């Protein structure tokens, strides 16, 4: 097994074990007005993160939870392997000497940034944080960020199932309870709408590329090519096919035991578009439409989401 995956699985397993012995109201804590899972994040780590030194060649994937960051992580790590003349998936692509870090930037112990400073380039990291809570050096040093967004109805649906399957997040008796929390800023990593509003301020920046979950789903080949171009990674047709094959939902689900451990089953549920129709009531549907219209629809990111296509019945 690749070493980085071992780190990944180990950390998640520990968090789940810790969460199992916690009361529901202990599972989240608030930092600068936003909730985070106690078992994954800590104020000490957030404090340490402030002085994290980003590099120009860091590969950063940003996305609200349940927007498909695990999926795009798979694509990006393969692209990075290719850029280093390694074959994705082969043993040689894992750097045996190096202890890889858990890819989610804000998850882990406060010392992880010190260890990360010794990793060789290009480093890959994922984050669910809002831009104003990221270390300032990311923007100062013009690190490249792939911003991944997904329509709010599928995000909410996925987040609901995820919350109820993963011990580290508070579970909900009913979907109605979850929906109310989702719409009233009570989600871990904060409010979906605020997340998009904040990132929208950065959407025009040259070193940030925005992509939607839905467009990757509809045209994965074009999406992967665009991502590779953005990060300056040349790609042969053969390499492209390999990346596509390895990032299909089926193959990721099949390999999830190895890549994500017991978390795999929790993570890979449906991987589709429009599952929300089976869970949103008409009333909730109207509330979401209204909130989107009022807060996001007119923004650049809002338009990119193609709300009418993916969120209108």
């Amino acid at each position, binding site marked *: 097994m690749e070493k980085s995956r071992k780190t990944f699985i180990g950390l998640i397993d520990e968090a789940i074990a810790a969460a199992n012995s916690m009361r529901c109201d202990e599972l989240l804590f608030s930092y600068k007005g936003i909730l985070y899972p106690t078992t994954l994040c800590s104020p000490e780590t957030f404090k340490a993160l402030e002085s994290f030194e980003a590099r120009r060649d860091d590969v950063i994937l940003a996305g609200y939870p349940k927007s498909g960051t695990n999926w795009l992580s798979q694509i990006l790590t393969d692209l990075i392997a290719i850029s280093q003349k390694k074959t994705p998936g082969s043993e040689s692509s894992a750097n045996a000497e190096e202890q890889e870090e858990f890819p989610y930037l804000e998850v882990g112990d406060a010392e992880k940034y010190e260890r990360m400073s010794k990793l060789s380039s290009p480093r890959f990291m994922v984050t669910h944080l809002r831009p104003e809570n990221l270390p300032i050096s990311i923007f100062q040093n013009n690190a490249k960020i792939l911003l991944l967004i997904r329509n709010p109805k599928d995000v909410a649906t996925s987040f609901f199932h995820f919350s109820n399957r993963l011990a580290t997040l508070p579970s909900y008796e009913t979907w109605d309870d979850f929906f109310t929390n989702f719409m009233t800023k009570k989600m871990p990593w904060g409010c979906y709408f605020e997340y998009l509003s904040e990132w929208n301020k950065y959407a025009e920046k040259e070193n940030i590329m925005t992509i939607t979950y839905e467009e990757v789903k509809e045209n994965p080949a074009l999406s992967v090519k665009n991502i590779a171009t953005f990060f300056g990674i040349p790609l042969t047709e053969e390499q492209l096919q390999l990346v596509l094959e390895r990032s299909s939902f089926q193959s990721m689900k099949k390999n999830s035991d190895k890549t994500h451990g017991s978390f795999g089953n929790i993570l890979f549920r449906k991987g589709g578009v429009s599952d929300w*129709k089976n869970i949103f009531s*008409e009333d909730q549907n109207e509330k979401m439409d209204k909130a989107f219209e009022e807060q996001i629809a007119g923004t650049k990111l809002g338009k990119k989401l193609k709300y009418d296509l993916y969120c209108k019945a």
Partner: protein
Amino acid sequence: MHFVNLDDLCSPHFLVSKMEIVMFCQGNIYRGTGLLQEVVYLVSQGADPDEIGLMNIDEQLPVLEYPQPGLDIIKELTSPRLIKSHLPYRFLPSDLHNGNSKVIYMARNPKDLVVSYYQFHRSLRTMSYRGTFQEFCRRFMNDKLGYGSWFEHVQEFWEHHMDANVLFLKYEDMHKDLATMVEQLVRFLGVSYDKAQLESMVEHCHQLIDQCCNAEALPVGRGRVGLWKDIFTVSMNEKFDLVYKQKMGKCDLTFDFYL
């Protein structure tokens, strides 16, 4: 559930005589006819609503097809009789078809109706329906519920909505414009009120509706218009709209699904 033999209803032994009033409402047995019968009772009798509150109207008015009180007793009631029924038009006593009795039909938008009907099925001890709403709604769309197809039921009556002895009402209109509905009832029933009486009648009816739809004692205010929006998922709604279109395609009857 036991019902009277339909043959008995259609035989000459059972005659609904002139000037009688039969109310129909399929599906939303509990709230739809419940409200309607109270309103009709008020209007027809000029009754004092405080008095109605004391009596239980539900038990006052016999249901044509129920074994209790049964046709023998209904026959003996003094005219004008107020009788309820949920039967389809084609199973009604021929005197109703002939125009000898008055028929008030209340229709309700089928989305609210199916939600209310579901909650009714779950709450009633004799039914104690255990399925999910989704399963229930599927039964509704496939005409697999008691009293048969709602779509046929409502269309059969709608074909007769212009008949002189038929008053076709919509549940939502009662919420939208109660005064007009009370006036319609007054005219149809041939009772006479002066303006002040009419106004106080409307006021009484308003109170009744308020009690029925907003009272917290009632399970989730089943009388509300637009009830379905909290219960129907978006995909269920899409399916429902398709089925509705198929089954009601040529019919020019329309409903308010929300106000």
